[in-house]
């Protein structure tokens, strides 16, 4: 469901900065449905990849073979990202807060961490330079605190937070609001899974479940071994 919802966020022809896992599935689903001309760019330097297997990392050799362009990382960050050529960036994180800030650095104090996470990678600059940020993350009060322990990626450009129960969107002031519900989910379920007093839009959208085509593509073509599809 998350992959299908994320895929629907992408318009044909857009240039998308992709991470591994669900974002990659979403992009490849979109390519095979409504957005055949989506251009996928990976942090690793592969542009226009059409991988013949499900990539296990953003540096997977299958992303190189048959891609349109491979460039060094200085070009990825300077000529594509900082240049403003990326229309959509996907991000995830251990914590997402009320204002869409993301933490992938530490749980606890930076100098005395409870849990040391991997760090930014390209997430800081993706959040700053991609024109539209889509966050993909599962809901839980721990994952959605009022304030993240560390701002790895600032929330200003976040346009949608796609969770396993609902979609959140920022209001005019950048505070995340409940905007749309998955089938069978009520607003109260979502509020209970968020660490702050989540407000809801006056009119909540109801999202359609994945179509038969979407499900078949995801389960049989894109991730037959269920590496990333669990729900």
């Amino acid at each position, binding site marked *: 469901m998350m992959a299908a919802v994320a895929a629907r966020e992408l318009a044909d022809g857009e240039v998308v900065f992709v991470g591994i896992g669900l974002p990659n599935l979403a992009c490849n689903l979109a390519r095979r449905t409504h957005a055949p001309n989506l251009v996928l760019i990976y942090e*690793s330097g592969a542009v226009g990849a059409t991988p013949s297997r499900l990539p296990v990392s953003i540096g997977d050799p299958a992303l190189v073979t048959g891609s349109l362009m491979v460039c*060094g*990382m*200085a070009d990825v960050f300077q000529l594509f990202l900082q240049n403003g050529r990326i229309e959509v960036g996907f991000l995830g994180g251990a914590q997402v807060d009320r204002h869409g800030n993301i933490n992938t*650095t530490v749980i606890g104090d930076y100098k005395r961490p409870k849990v040391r996470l991997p760090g*930014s990678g390209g997430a*800081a600059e993706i*959040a700053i330079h991609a024109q539209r940020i889509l966050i993909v993350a599962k809901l839980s009060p721990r994952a959605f605190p009022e304030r993240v322990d560390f701002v*790895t990626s600032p929330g200003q450009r976040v346009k949608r937070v796609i969770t396993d129960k609902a979609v959140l969107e920022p209001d005019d002031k950048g505070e995340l609001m409940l905007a749309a519900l998955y089938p069978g989910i009520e607003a109260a379920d979502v509020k209970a899974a968020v660490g702050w007093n989540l407000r809801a839009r006056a009119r909540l959208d109801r999202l359609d479940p994945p179509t038969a085509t979407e499900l078949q593509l995801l389960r049989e073509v894109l991730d037959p071994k269920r590496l990333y599809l669990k729900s």
Partner: protein
Amino acid sequence: MSLRDAVARNVRDGDVVVIEGFTHLISFAAGHEIIRQRRRDLTLCRLTPDLIYDQMIAAGCAKKLVFSWAGNPGVGSLHAFRRAVEGRTLEIEEYSHFGMVARFAAGAARLPFWTLRDYAGTDLPKANPRIKSVTCPYTGEALATVPALNPDVTIVHAQRADAQGNAQIWGLLGVQKEAAFASERVIVVVEELVDERVIRSDPNRTLIPAAIVSAVVVEPWGAHPSYAQGYYDRDNDFYVGWEEISRDRAELAHYLDEFVYGVQDRAEYMEKQPRLLERLKAGEQRCAGVNYGF
């Protein structure tokens, strides 16, 4: 030159050491040799520390880590790294990928800093005071800066080079060129030594020129369990397996004993890797050629 000699001559205790390669072409062979030679107090720099730095940290080679993403790509954590940071036994200096790329770019251009539009709204500059800013002399706006990184030694794994060290790389290029040009000394480890004529037949493919190379070493499969495009695939089973090995100190020590300390060199390591060829040898996908005539 043997990798043993190349490391002995070019990697010293206390050095700032870079083994680069973004997922692709990571010189595990060189990392293992550094562990075997028991180098100490190294400042290890790399965008993505990966399994090889996790092993070097576990083996006690590292005093400090300079990095931007420390995970097991596509799998999970680097547990030796996490133990060291959570137990505060390893000094860290942390950037984003762009910050690390910019540090190498500045080092390669021998400028003291590099300018980037980054870090507004993030907590990274609070965590790392070396992220500063500069005012544009034209527009007056403030832009982020990072300081140059000029390693003592950079080790790059390449697909092929000639005997002088003119090295060609294809597939993912990462920041190898910048890291090599930024470095005082450069070790190039290759899958294949080729005749100079092969290099000269396609000069646009040369990423690192012999003029900056200190040592050339031939070590086929020297990047395993990472990969070399056109030679062998990533050993994903090993990456997945590292989660279990690295989670447990004893398991990790046992791994190092068997596969690093317990072998003399890469050839012995390779003897301990069963069925690599059938599991991982690359298929054929040749490029369309080009004509360099005039």
